[in-house]
């Protein structure tokens, strides 16, 4: 028993060493995000002479960051809401049907989980230009929800299986059916799954670069990853202090979310991997 305890302590120590090594890079990033450009060029290893927020201020000013931030939130939230509402409806019905048709439809939904984005990227860009929906955040969010809904539909299907059918029949006899039944009785029961999916989809959309990159060309509509990229391309002499500050600002909301919903995020991502 004693030997086991000793091994546990040794393993724990090793893991901590690994953790620190893994986070060492982040340390340099944080240090350099607070330095002036001159300091970064002179010596990237040294601590900043003064810990000032100038880089962050400049990113906010030149990158129009508040607007960009709001754009990203709007894009991520709207896409997420569409996926959750329509996806839960579809998942519910498909799970209840439980026949050849619903199984076939589920398989069709699963195709999108396997294929990488470039496979549909070209027609999406062409379609968006033809329908005049590029540079239109609301339409882009709808489009985004359309091709990324698979995970939600499949996860909701699994969850609805655990809700007894008798509930549907009882409510039907009491004259409560259709949308009213779904949104007053079933949807609240799906809340835990909705919470998990909301967080997962928010992170995914928040970090998404490709779709905004092919559909958004107006600077006022940039999302965060897109503005980071344009920041990078804008400076021929790489202004690392600004780029790293912008990077930290992009990470911050996700890290805050992670602090609060760490368990949900991890278990949700594991479930998504195992089912997909």
């Amino acid at each position, binding site marked *: 028993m004693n030997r086991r305890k000793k091994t546990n302590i040794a393993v724990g120590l090793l893991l901590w060493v690994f953790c620190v090594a893994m986070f060492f890079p982040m340390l340099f990033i944080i240090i350099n995000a607070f330095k002036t450009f001159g300091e970064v060029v002179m010596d990237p*290893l040294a601590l900043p002479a003064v810990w000032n927020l100038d880089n962050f201020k400049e990113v906010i000013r030149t990158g129009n960051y508040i607007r960009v931030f709001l754009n990203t939130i709007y894009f991520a939230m709207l896409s997420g809401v569409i996926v959750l509402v329509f996806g839960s*409806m579809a998942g519910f019905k498909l799970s209840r*049907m439980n026949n050849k048709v619903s199984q076939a439809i589920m398989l069709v939904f699963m195709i999108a989980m396997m294929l990488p984005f*470039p*496979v549909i990227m*070209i027609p999406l860009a*062409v*379609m968006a230009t033809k329908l005049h929906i590029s540079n239109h955040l609301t339409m882009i969010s709808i489009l985004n929800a359309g091709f990324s809904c698979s995970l939600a539909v499949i996860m909701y299907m699994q969850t609805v299986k655990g809700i007894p059918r008798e509930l549907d029949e009882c409510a039907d006899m009491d004259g409560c059916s259709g949308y009213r039944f779904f949104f007053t009785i079933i949807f609240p029961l799906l809340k835990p799954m909705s919470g998990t999916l909301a967080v997962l989809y928010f992170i995914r959309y928040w970090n998404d670069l490709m779709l905004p990159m092919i559909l958004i060309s107006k600077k006022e509509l940039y999302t965060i990853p897109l503005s980071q990229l344009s920041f990078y391309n804008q400076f021929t002499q790489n202004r690392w202090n600004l780029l790293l500050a912008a990077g930290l600002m992009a990470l911050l909301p996700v890290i805050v979310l*992670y602090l609060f919903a760490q368990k949900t995020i991890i278990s949700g991502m594991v479930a998504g991997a195992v089912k997909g």
Partner: protein
Amino acid sequence: MKSRKKLRKECLGFIKFVAPMLILYTLFFLIPLVQTIYYSFTDYNGINPKLGWIGLGNYRAVFQDKYFYNSLLFTVLSALLFMAVINVAGFVLALGLNRKIRSRNILRAIIFCPFIFNNVTVGFIWQFLLGRLMTDLYPLTGWGIFKIGWLSEERLVIYSVVLVKAWQAVGYFMVIYLAGLQMLPQDPLEAAAIDGCGGWNRIFKIVLPLMRPTSFVCLFLAITETLNMFPLLMTLTNGGPGHASENISLYIYNEAFKSHRMGYASALSVILTIVVLMVAMVQMRLTKEGDA
């Protein structure tokens, strides 16, 4: 009469509940997928609205394109390398964390954290570290490892890319393995303990075979992750130096939106789709066999 009424009700329910999502999915995934196939037979360049039908011309060109083979080779090699690194590292970390360690939850949370970072930031961070910081570390330490241009040498760039991707995703694979370890049936493990089978023997002869389903998931997940890593490539190396770190997804993007050869890029996409679906079919086969 009754069954017809029931059928009608069923159809109505289907339209009310499934149709909204299915319509969006069809419009923005299924139709584009079919359109990709159609474009691949044309000389579409994204500007001229008149499509010229050129049959298999694009496909013939693909198989003579040395950059296609280059990107294919990079994709396959990086996928294999990533698969090996991430699965070994993820499994070992999971074994460690599966022990009764006091700070287990914090460790798990920290190691997983980079996985939720956005690819653009991760790319910039590592471009700074490998491209900029290392040049300053060399005169300080004199270690040869810092003298090497990790991102600028064609020979080495694949290792750097896989390393960065592994840094980002190791926590993800770790938690999947951890979940697998925690779902293992306890009986064989206890029986092994009674029979005096411990340490490495226990891991290699009992735990690993029992983990087969989880390993399958992780192996194929590694392929998907490498195919999807092109935003990272774009910010880390942008395919460079030259075309040395251009994977197939990035090549498709460059052909379509930089060279405006959309028809040609569509042909590449179709080939990629076929390959991915074939891999997925192999996976399904193997998982089914594993279950039986």
